[in-house]
């Protein structure tokens, strides 16, 4: 998911650069659509998982304002990982080009109703394009903030918030930050 989102940001920025030849950006748009729908499906699964599983709690000694910021940031990440593929899908559906979507060149994917049937798609397409781009930059900013916060927890606050997010098995439980600090002092 993280790799997918980073790849989408990179592809999205590259493919919309002016001056690219159609042969260069056309395949990028198709790939962007394929990866975007993949992320949409993965995000739905992830959110279902999140709603049915309680995540590890935040460190007890975190200041309340930091906890609030963490919850808000996480909510924003979930919201945008759904909203970006959805607005992208809507944008494709409202495109005046009316290019059918085939995920990874093979799997047909429908346009959204209503938008694809608009008599004059141009205004809807322009609005959705602005929303999608704004959301994309917001997500990029939030991902940077998320990564910065994780690094801060690891290197500055020195708790286990980062390591417990890692997908691979952790070494014997990281020591609580207090004992770690004591160890370094010794």
């Amino acid at each position, binding site marked *: 998911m993280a790799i997918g989102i980073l790849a989408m940001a990179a592809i999205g920025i590259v493919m919309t650069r002016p001056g690219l030849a159609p042969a260069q950006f056309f395949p990028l748009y198709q790939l962007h659509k394929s990866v975007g729908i993949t992320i949409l499906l993965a995000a739905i699964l992830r959110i279902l998982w999140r709603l049915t599983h309680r995540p590890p709690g935040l460190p007890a000694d975190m200041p309340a304002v930091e906890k609030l910021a963490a919850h808000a940031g996480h909510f924003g990440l979930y919201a945008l990982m759904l909203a970006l593929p959805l607005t992208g899908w809507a944008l494709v559906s409202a495109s005046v*080009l009316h290019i059918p979507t085939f995920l990874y*060149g093979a799997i047909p994917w429908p346009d959204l109703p209503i938008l694809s049937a608009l008599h004059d798609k141009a205004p809807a397409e322009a609005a959705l394009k602005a929303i999608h781009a704004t959301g994309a930059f917001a997500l990029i900013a939030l991902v940077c903030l998320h990564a910065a916060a994780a690094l801060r927890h690891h290197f500055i606050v020195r708790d286990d918030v980062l390591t417990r997010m890692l997908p691979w098995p952790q070494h014997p439980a990281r020591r609580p930050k207090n004992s770690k600090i004591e160890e370094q002092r010794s």
Partner: protein
Amino acid sequence: MIIRHNRASKFSIAATVLLVLFGDTEAARAAQWIIDPARSKLGFSGTQVGTQFQGTLTPYTARINFDPADLANSSVHIEIDPASATTGDPQRDAALPATEWFDVADFPKAVFDATSIQTTGTNAFNADGKLTIRGVTLPFSLPFTLEIDGATAHATGHAQLIRTDFGVGQGPWTSGDFVALKVDVNIDLVATRGQATTSQ
């Protein structure tokens, strides 16, 4: 004398059209020819974002009367189903029937109708007529070569058209930025001399 015959052959064409004729060197009257779908191909080629693609059209209905010795009574009438256009790419094939391109819902038939056929050389002819695509009818000329071996005739021909002359590619597609305006029409048809079923 014109002999007419309607036959649903299996073939294809899309942004294009065709025709075909075949001659009977022995009969004194324009003969009717029946296309052999298994050995014939009605196709087109275009360029999308810099890459050329080939398309075929099938089925089509052809009514062909042709006699090199009686060109005045020779004619070709071909009706093509634009919805049958296939180009080997699912995305492109899904786009072609849409409003922006062939708009098959409103214009289910493309037609080439040639009633003026001239000799242009040995085994070479030119069929002048009208081509209708997406409801737009324009003069169209199809040069072709023809070889007749007994009761079998083989015609090959090539022509070009500008797709936007016929409204194929609406809105932003009226520019050639993504899809070239020029489309090649290719025919490679094999026909056998048929039985006269009707005459007038």
